[in-house]
């Protein structure tokens, strides 16, 4: 089963949270060295899927293999960088102290710490406490803490939320550069126009993938003018299929 051309392999993943079946039966292969976008409406299960990939989600059944090892296993700890949806950094420490802490855990030197801060464009606020930053700066500090360890796989849950268009463009350019250098990225978002910045797309709704495709293919298949229209077309198609097959079901693809 070990196949190094996949960053993430998921087989028949099933997750229940708080009594609610969030992911009924999910299987997917995510290639290495690409920016893979995980898009879909709120509550669709993006964060749950991401948590399963980094190995912090209790799963009911199914397997999640990351870089050839079971998700969350010891050997993956320094190879996977994770940014939670709400920024998870220490608000009472400075940006530099936060990045340094996560950097030292990963075993990198001070130069790497400064580089990570520069990558998210925060050198001017390196000595500011995180609690005194704006929302966007806060989430960039959180991102820097994942970048600093130079992981092979970066799993980012909505890293561009609340950022202005310029910063968003810069970050997507950064993701592209990281992928070109061999890093695999799984990036969730619910801003559909960010789909065009990805190498591959996973469109997720109600715990299922409506599409596992490339941006160009998505537009070609749906005939839609942009990603947002394409996504809406897919949702409508899925809804009418469900209605035709009796409505209630729709648990497994």
């Amino acid at each position: 089963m070990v196949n190094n051309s996949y960053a993430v392999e998921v087989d028949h993943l099933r997750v229940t949270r708080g009594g609610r079946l969030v992911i009924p039966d999910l299987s997917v292969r995510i290639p290495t060295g690409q920016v893979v976008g995980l898009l879909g409406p709120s509550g669709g299960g993006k964060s749950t899927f991401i948590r399963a990939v980094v190995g912090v989600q209790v799963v009911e059944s199914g397997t999640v293999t990351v870089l050839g090892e079971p998700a969350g296993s010891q050997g993956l700890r320094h190879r996977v960088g994770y940014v939670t949806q709400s920024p998870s950094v220490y608000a009472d420490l400075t940006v530099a102290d936060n990045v340094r802490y996560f950097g030292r855990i990963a075993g990198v030197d001070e130069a790497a710490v400064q580089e990570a801060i520069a990558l998210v464009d925060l050198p001017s606020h390196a000595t500011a406490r995180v609690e005194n930053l704006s929302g966007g700066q806060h989430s960039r500090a959180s991102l820097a803490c994942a970048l600093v360890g130079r992981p092979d796989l970066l799993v980012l849950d909505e890293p561009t939320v609340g950022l202005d268009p310029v910063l968003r463009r810069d970050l997507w350019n950064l993701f592209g550069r990281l992928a070109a250098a061999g890093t695999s990225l799984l990036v969730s978002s619910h801003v559909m126009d960010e789909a065009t910045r990805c190498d591959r797309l996973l469109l997720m709704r109600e715990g299922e993938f409506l599409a596992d495709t490339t941006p160009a293919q998505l537009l070609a298949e749906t005939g839609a003018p942009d990603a947002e229209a394409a996504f809406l077309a897919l949702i409508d198609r899925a809804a009418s299929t469900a209605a035709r097959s009796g409505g209630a079901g729709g648990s497994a693809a």
Partner: protein
Amino acid sequence: MNLRLTLLTAGRVLRQIRGDHRTVALMIVVPCVLIGLLAWIFNATPFVFDHIGPALLGVFPFVVMFIVTSVATLRERTSGTLERLLTTRIGKGDFMAGYALAFGFMAVVQALVATGFAVWVCGLDVAGPIWLLVVVAVADAVLGTALGLLASGFARTEFQAVQFMPAFVLPQFLLCGLLVARDALPDVLRWVSDALPLSYAVDAMKTITATSDALGDVGKDLVVIVGWIALALVLGSLTLRRRTP
């Protein structure tokens, strides 16, 4: 467990505390103020202060450290930093030991200041060696930290964490022999008291107050306290879950 990761975590926690002047003040100044208040209350009867002062020197650091630690670790759980940390190389043991070490260091500072204040400013007079007073106070503070780490595992909100203080601490306080001598308690309560760590802390402090050759007896009490610290840390690390629902 990994010493480097433990030290990194302890250093990070200390850096957080250092930036929070009010918490530092709470930890260092509050025990002194309370001891000063006690000395003042018993101004006319200094022998009473000499009798209960050392016991309270063991109780105050315990309480303060319990609250500070349980809220600090709860914040770590609710802010998502714990979830993130557990995806890195940091193990549960490194996390717990890092916190215990950082607050243990604060406990040393606190015990030195509080004991010095009690002895030199308030004129506390004990028969045993003063350094032993400091050792027991530090052990009590680390005990508070370890139980605080454990309690935070059962709290979902900071409100609950603070409520655990009376739940965990007050029964121990009532049964530790400070209000009623432990021999005079009803049997069942005495057995409970025999199982609770704060009883040994107060016993140790009382021994230091009364006898000049206190090392042997205090040593036995310290063994129980250290055992409780280890137990609380192990149980606490079991409440840390890498995978959550």
